[in-house]
């Protein structure tokens, strides 16, 4: 539940990692060719105990307030994987920068599977 804090004249604005993950998730879903967001070991375990909404997207902030995102992805069959991954990276970058004013350093996409 780590958060990014920005100080304004009226007070502090904190953006939680989960908020960034939600923005990423919505931006990913907009891209044609994306079947769904993949999972990891932790999300698999949490899904087993019924926590289905757990996001496997990893968000990290570095010392310079830059964001690093890791997205596990399942791509639809018959789509160019690299093109889809590039579109995802571009859309995620623009969505985060537009909605949070944070600078995105890296967006790593891990294509886990291809499904019909």
């Amino acid at each position, binding site marked *: 539940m780590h958060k990014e804090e920005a100080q304004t004249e009226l007070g502090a604005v904190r953006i939680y990692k989960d908020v960034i993950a939600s923005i990423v998730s919505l931006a990913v879903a907009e891209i044609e060719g994306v079947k769904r967001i993949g999972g990891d070991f932790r999300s698999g375990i949490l899904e087993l105990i019924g926590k289905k909404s757990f996001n496997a997207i990893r968000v990290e902030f570095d010392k310079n307030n830059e964001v690093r*995102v890791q997205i596990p992805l399942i*791509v639809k*069959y*018959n*789509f*160019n*994987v*690299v*093109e889809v*991954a*590039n579109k995802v*990276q*571009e859309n995620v*970058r623009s969505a985060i920068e537009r909605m949070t004013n944070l600078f*995105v350093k*890296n*967006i*790593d*996409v*891990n*294509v*886990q*599977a*291809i*499904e*019909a």
Partner: protein
Amino acid sequence: MRLFVYLGIVFYAFILILIGLVLIIFAFNILKPQDISNLISFVQYSTHSRIIIGLSGLLLILVSISFAQLILGRFQRERTIAFSTSSGEVTIALSAIEDLIKRLSSYLPEIRELRPDVIATKKGIIVDLRVILRSEANIPELTAHLQDITKSKMQEVLGIEEPIIIKIHIAKIVPLEDRDKKKKETEKQEPPIPFSGYTRL
């Protein structure tokens, strides 16, 4: 690095053999519980031997952790293909490529089962295809076609430029099932064209 892996394997084999030998000796009643008890009390008696035992335990834990990390890290690295883009890194799991190749069998009715194994090496991407064929398939033609479509599909979907080496292993040839035979027979019997016997005057 390879030497370290080799030493690790030898080390673990040695430990397991040692445990096995102790168990066998214990089973034959050569080693008695009293002997083990005496040995443990002897070791515990002296401070020096306790320090040595403790340090050996710590060393064993460190060796195990580093070896596991090395193997798992290597395994993970080998199971993905990575591309760098301006926005970050794109990694594609080799299992995703295997999923893609499996779907190719639907294009070729002669293939009953297709089991791909994809390995990424410095030379390029090696695809091992284990195939089960239906009888009456022309093997040279079919394998050449399978190699072609696998290569073109991988290049089209993944956009990779590395050389792709496709090896095919035909594991089994199974007879045509009744369903397939009927299908083939219906295909052979061309449907009659209505009024084909008549000509225009």
